[in-house]
Structures are given as structure tokens and as C-alpha cells.
């Protein structure tokens, strides 16, 4: 462990940017806002690059004890930072992709009234995310964890005058609270049993413990509770419902927070806690099952969505499911690898979708797109690369990471692998469906409708948008860079180099067993499985091509013949409705009848109002004593005197 005095600067720089823009942005020019936001963010990225360049396995990990925070008895939690291989990968992803999305936002949000507010929130998010990634103990990590939740809330509800955006923000926040509850209890358990939240100390205490095989023990409980927290933040079953709604936020937010960085915090946390999970096989199995089911579940919903961002949202949930599957089978480095490549291509997909939405004046419904390829060639090209990457076509980034996960999953159970492959097929299908609907065929938007004399059912864009147009270079540049990363990003995993790089962070991981040189049979098997996943990806592409390019009438007929099944998928399996009945309605009804009408109005208000009322009645009667008539006063004085005398006599008699 090497002390590194500059570590604190990485989160602090974006915080400074957020503060400057937040406090002074309203009165400064947009150029100044952009300069501040980008330079502080860029400085953090530069510093992260510098750290990476000086990083060597010998000196790693870096740490910095910045300041004391909580010292209570033997328990202590400080503002201290920690940089090992795992956090370095996260650090580069967050600052790098974050910087690109900041640049993109300049173009995307330029005309928005709250430009300074947006940039300030984005920088604030960077600060919290970097705190989360660089924290040396669970408590500081939790600060970042909650902070990114706050930034997410602020940015989902960024257009807060829109009711749906405000509710989506609240939904995200509340659903995340459920997960955070589990996380907190896990932290309490750690404090109780290990007396510390510091990573090194907790893990040192756990290291000598044996894996808990039979039933649930302490580590299993901690692991499961941590998984509850991760499921909330990373939108896994059953807490994924907030992520699709989070698409109400501006598209750069969806790209940065709800695809590339924040939602992967759960994966990072599970990977960081690998020492705990390795000794809690039951918890690890739960992680794998939750991840696998989420991957399949979300992918099927993605098929029937018509909102371009919703498709990507469900795709994100599905890909996060892959990452958890990887962690669940003990392949933490494969999960982190997919996290990184996913940040590239999913960030790119969202940014390209944003470019499309921007280019046709705010429309998000894919049924009103189509034929956009000649209008926006750059967007098409970059989005095409991202689609190839996520579908798992070699040699793009997604292929390497997804295949790594599938191979590791196969080694644990063929069931995980099978579901993973099915999901890969569905992923490929809905992504190419998105591409064909958006860029293929003819333009079905408002302008084209008028040209064809169809009834323009008043889907008012109202921005004076004419024909679809390509986005400015400030938005295209990040697209191109991310496309390059999606193209070549997978090669860092070639020959398990990525895994070896991360190995020190996961030292003692179960992967050691798989480190053995693969036998010839294993190698053949791996290549066969690779062939299977490539062919399902191609099959998905082919199916999408047939349905959405060759025979565009067919999907509607298929949907019709499927009837109830299609409606269930299109309505997201009615999960939101189910949650509304199971959880929201009882809470609302209980609050209305018991807490509001019963306790608040019946007890608290009634006490205050009744005492005020009775005081008024008594005074109302008493005020008639003040008649102004001197003789009545005299009478009262005399009566009072008489009472006093009578009392004294009575007392005297006794």
C-alpha cells in the first residue's frame, strides 16, 4: 500500500465544478458554464489517467487518509480513499465516459433554460460516483451511494414541471431506499461483528473464516443484504421498476447515470465485497439466479417496447443481469469487464438515441421514426457499431465480455449458460429491431405524414423542426470516440489480460481454480460455445431483418396472434400494476384512513382545535363580567369578599 496525496483531488474537482456552476451559473454566460463544467471534469479524467500511468502492481494499491470523520470507541470511519486495480477500472470508466457525456450534453442541452443547473448536477453526480468508487470503507462508499441516488433523482426530475418526470424521480428515489435499507443493515451487521467498515480490516477479519456451506450464517446474511442494496441501485429483480421510468430524464443523464456508471455501482459493490461472497455460497447463488432471471426477464420486455429509450432501458437492466450472473458464478473480473464494455456501447447507444431524438425534434416513439439513415449518417454508423457490440458480434467489445461471462457461467451450471444464450438471442433481436425501425424503411414522422396527406394527429413537436437533421459536431465527437472504444475495447480482455490485471484485487478468488491451463478438450468446448453465442446473435439479427425490414406487416400479425401474451409483454408483465396493488395502494390507503384521517385529523388536530374551542367558549361567557357597570363590579368585589370570609370561617371552624 502506497500513500498517494493527490487521490482526494479526483472527486474534489467535479465537486468544485458543481459548486461554481451551482452558485454562480445563473448569472454567468453559457460559455463560462461549459468551461467550468468541462475543465473540472476533464481535470479529474487527466488525473485519473496520470494515476493509471503511474500505477504498477508493485506499488498498488494507493490509499489516502484524508481526514478523521467518526471516532466512537473502537469504531472508526474516516474520509479515506483507496485505489486498486478494481477501482482504477471504475475510475477510468467513470471519468472517461463521464467526460465524453459532459461534452455531448453541451450540444444536447444548449438551448435548455436550466443549462447551468444541468451541468452543475452532472458534476455533482461525478463527485459522488467517484467518492463511491474511491472509498476505502463501506460508510464513505455509502455516502457516494446515496449521493449518486440524489444526483439521479435531481436529474430524472430535471424537467420538474412535467408531472411524469417528477414522479419518475420520486419513484427512483423510493425504490432505491428499499435497496439501501438492506445495504444499511448489512453495514450494521459488519460493525457489530467486525467492529469496522474499513475494507481492509473487514476483509482481514473474514479472510480466515470458512465458507458457510450449510444454511444461512452471518456472511450469508451480509451477502444477501448487500445484494438487496445492489439490486436496488443496479435495477435487478424485483427492484428494477424505477429504471425504465428514469428515462424521463434528459438523454445524456440516461447515458451517464442510468446506463454507464451509476447503475453499475451495485456490480462494483458486489465485486468489491467478493471476500464476503466467496465465503457465502448461498448468497452467491442468489446473486447468480437474480442476475440470470433479470437478464431474461428484462430482455423479453425489451422486445415489445416502442419508445426508443425504453428499449435501451430494459436492455440495460438485462445487461446488468449479465454482470450479476458473472459475479454470481464467481467470475468477478468478467463482470467488471462487461461493466466496462457495457459503459462504452450502452453509453454510445443512449447518446446516439439522444442524437436521433434531437434530430427529429423530441420524438421518442420508434413507430414515428424510420428512414433516418440518409439524414444522420454519423449517428447511424456509430449506433450500428454499438448495436453490433451489444449483440455480441465479434470482434466488437460486447462479444468478448459477454462470451467471457457465458463461458464462466457454463463452468458452474449449464442452466445459467442456456438462459444467457437465449437472452443474447433476444438482445440481438430487439437491438436490430430498434435499428431497422429507426433507420430503415421510410420516415414515418410528422413531416412525412403531411407530405403523404395522412391525417396529422397533432403530435406537436412545435420546435419549428423541419426535416430530420444530423446533430452538431460537439455531439458527434463523443459518439465517434465511444464507437471506437466499442470497436476495440474488447481487446483488453484478449488472452485473459484484463482478468490478470484485476487478479490482485480479487486475490484468493474462486477463479484460481480456473486459472489452470485449459486442456485441449476445454479449449474446444469454449470455442464451440463461442460459436453458439455468435450464431444466436446472427440469428437474432436475421430474424429482426426479416420481420422489420423484409416483411414489416408481419410483426403486427404475430403480435395479434399471440394475443394475451403479447399484451402482457407490451405492458411489462403488469409488474407496475402488481406493485401498485401490493405495495403502493395499501400504503396510500393506510396513510389516508389511519394516519391522515385517524391520527392527524382525529387526534392531533382534534386536540389542538378542541382546546382552542373550549378556551373560546369559556372566555365568551366570562367576558360578560366586564359590563362597564360600576355597581356590578362592586357586587363582584363584595361577592368575592364574602366568599373569602366564608372560606376563612369554614376553615376556622374546622
Amino acid at each position, binding site marked *: 500500500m502506497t500513500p498517494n496525496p493527490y487521490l482526494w483531488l479526483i472527486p474534489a474537482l467535479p465537486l468544485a465544478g458543481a459548486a461554481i456552476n451551482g452558485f454562480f451559473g445563473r448569472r454567468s454566460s453559457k460559455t463560462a458554464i461549459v468551461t467550468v463544467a468541462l475543465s473540472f471534469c476533464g481535470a479529474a479524467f487527466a488525473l485519473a489517467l496520470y494515476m493509471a500511468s503511474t500505477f504498477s502492481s508493485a506499488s498498488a494499491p494507493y490509499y489516502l487518509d484524508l481526514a478523521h470523520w467518526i471516532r466512537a470507541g473502537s469504531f472508526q470511519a474516516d474520509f479515506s480513499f483507496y485505489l486498486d486495480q478494481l477501482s482504477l477500472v471504475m475510475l477510468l470508466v467513470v471519468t472517461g465516459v463521464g467526460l465524453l457525456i459532459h461534452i455531448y450534453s453541451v450540444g444536447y442541452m444548449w438551448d435548455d433554460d436550466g443549462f447551468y443547473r444541468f451541468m452543475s448536477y452532472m458534476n455533482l453526480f461525478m463527485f459522488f460516483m467517484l467518492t463511491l468508487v474511491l472509498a476505502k470503507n463501506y460508510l464513505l462508499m455509502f455516502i457516494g451511494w446515496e449521493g449518486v441516488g440524489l444526483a439521479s433523482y435531481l436529474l430524472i426530475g430535471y424537467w420538474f414541471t412535467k408531472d411524469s418526470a417528477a414522479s419518475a424521480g420520486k419513484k427512483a428515489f423510493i425504490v432505491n431506499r428499499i435497496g439501501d435499507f438492506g445495504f444499511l443493515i448489512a453495514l450494521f451487521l459488519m460493525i457489530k461483528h467486525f467492529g469496522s467498515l474499513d475494507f481492509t480490516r473487514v476483509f482481514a477479519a473474514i479472510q480466515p473464516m470458512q465458507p458457510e456451506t450449510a444454511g444461512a450464517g452471518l456472511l450469508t446474511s451480509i451477502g444477501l443484504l448487500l445484494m438487496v442494496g445492489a439490486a436496488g441501485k443496479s435495477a435487478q429483480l424485483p427492484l428494477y421498476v424505477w429504471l425504465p421510468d428514469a428515462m424521463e430524464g434528459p438523454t445524456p443523464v440516461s447515458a451517464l447515470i442510468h446506463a454507464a456508471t451509476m447503475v453499475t455501482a451495485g456490480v462494483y459493490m458486489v465485486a468489491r465485497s467478493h471476500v464476503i461472497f466467496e465465503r457465502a455460497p448461498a448468497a452467491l447463488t442468489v446473486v447468480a439466479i437474480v442476475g440470470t432471471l433479470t437478464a431474461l426477464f428484462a430482455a423479453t420486455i425489451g422486445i415489445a417496447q416502442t419508445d426508443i429509450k425504453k428499449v435501451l432501458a430494459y436492455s440495460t437492466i438485462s445487461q446488468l443481469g449479465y454482470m450479476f450472473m458473472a459475479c454470481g458464478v464467481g467470475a468477478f473480473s468478467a463482470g467488471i469487464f462487461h461493466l466496462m464494455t457495457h459503459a462504452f456501447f450502452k453509453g454510445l447507444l443512449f447518446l446516439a438515441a439522444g442524437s436521433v431524438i434531437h434530430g427529429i425534434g423530441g420524438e421518442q416513439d420508434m413507430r414515428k421514426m424510420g428512414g433516418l439513415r440518409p439524414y444522420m449518417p454519423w449517428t447511424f454508423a456509430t449506433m450500428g457499431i454499438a448495436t453490433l457490440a451489444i449483440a455480441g458480434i465479434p470482434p466488437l467489445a460486447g462479444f468478448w465480455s459477454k462470451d467471457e461471462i457465458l463461458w464462466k457461467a457454463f463452468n458452474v451450471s449449464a442452466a445459467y449458460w442456456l438462459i444467457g444464450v437465449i437472452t443474447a438471442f433476444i438482445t440481438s433481436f430487439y437491438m436490430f429491431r430498434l435499428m431497422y425501425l429507426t433507420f430503415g424503411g421510410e420516415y414515418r414522422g410528422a413531416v412525412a405524414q403531411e407530405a403523404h396527406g395522412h391525417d396529422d394527429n397533432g403530435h406537436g413537436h412545435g420546435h419549428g423542426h423541419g426535416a430530420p437533421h444530423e446533430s452538431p459536431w460537439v455531439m458527434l465527437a463523443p459518439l465517434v470516440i465511444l464507437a471506437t472504444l466499442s470497436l476495440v475495447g474488447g481487446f483488453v480482455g484478449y488472452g485473459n489480460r484484463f482478468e490478470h490485471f484485476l487478479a490482485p484485487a480479487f486475490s484468493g478468488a474462486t477463479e484460481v481454480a480456473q486459472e489452470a491451463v485449459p486442456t485441449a478438450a476445454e479449449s474446444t468446448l469454449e470455442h464451440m460455445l463461442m460459436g453458439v453465442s455468435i450464431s444466436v446473435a446472427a440469428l437474432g439479427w436475421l430474424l429482426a431483418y426479416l420481420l422489420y425490414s423484409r416483411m414489416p406487416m408481419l410483426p403486427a400479425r404475430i403480435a395479434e396472434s399471440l394475443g394475451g401474451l403479447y399484451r402482457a409483454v407490451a405492458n411489462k408483465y403488469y409488474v407496475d400494476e402488481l406493485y401498485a396493488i401490493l405495495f403502493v395502494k395499501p400504503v396510500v390507503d393506510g396513510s389516508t384512513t389511519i394516519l391522515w384521517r385517524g391520527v392527524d385529523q382525529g387526534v392531533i388536530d382534534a386536540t389542538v382545535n378542541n382546546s382552542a374551542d373550549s378556551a373560546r367558549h369559556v372566555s365568551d361567557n366570562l367576558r360578560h363580567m366586564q359590563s*362597564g*357597570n*360600576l355597581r356590578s363590579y362592586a357586587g363582584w368585589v363584595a361577592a368575592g369578599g364574602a366568599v373569602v370570609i366564608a372560606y376563612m370561617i369554614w376553615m376556622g371552624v374546622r
Partner: protein
Amino acid sequence: MVPLTYYLLLSGILFTCGVLGFLIKRNIITIFMSIELMLNGVNLSFVAFAAHWHALSGQVFVFFVMVVAAAEATVGLAIIIAVFRTRETLNVDQVNLLKL
């Protein structure tokens, strides 16, 4: 030697007359005089007790009461004159501005 009881009876009668006049009379001067009557009824009982117990404090106290009564008369009469000047009446029932 007149017994103490007689003094006390007379004192009680004087005090009761004062109270009744205080309550019944409408003329403010009469009310004023009723108050003096009550004070003097009390004074009588003071001196009677003082004589009976051969203690001087009762008589001293009467002097205090008389001083206070004199001061009260001064202030009271001044107020009465002021009231009469503004309202041209001595009837207390017509001096009833101080009410809700």
C-alpha cells in the same frame, strides 16, 4: 365599662351599612361615603380590640387606615370632579364606557 361585644356589633352594623350603600346607591358621592363608613366600621373594631387587649398596635393601625382613607378621599374626589366636568352626572350607571 361597655363590653367588647357591643363595639363589635356596632362595628358590624356600620360595615354592613357601608356594604349595602356601596352596592345599592347610584350617586357616586354616596358610594364614596359608604366606603368611608366601611373603613370606619373596621377602625372601630380595631380600637375596641386594642382597648380590650391593652395592645397599642390596633390603635396605630387605625392611624394608618385614616391616612390611607384621607389619601383615597383626595384622589377619589379629584376623579369625581373630573368625571362630573366631562359627563355632567354623578350617576354611576351612566358612567359605563369601560366595557367590552
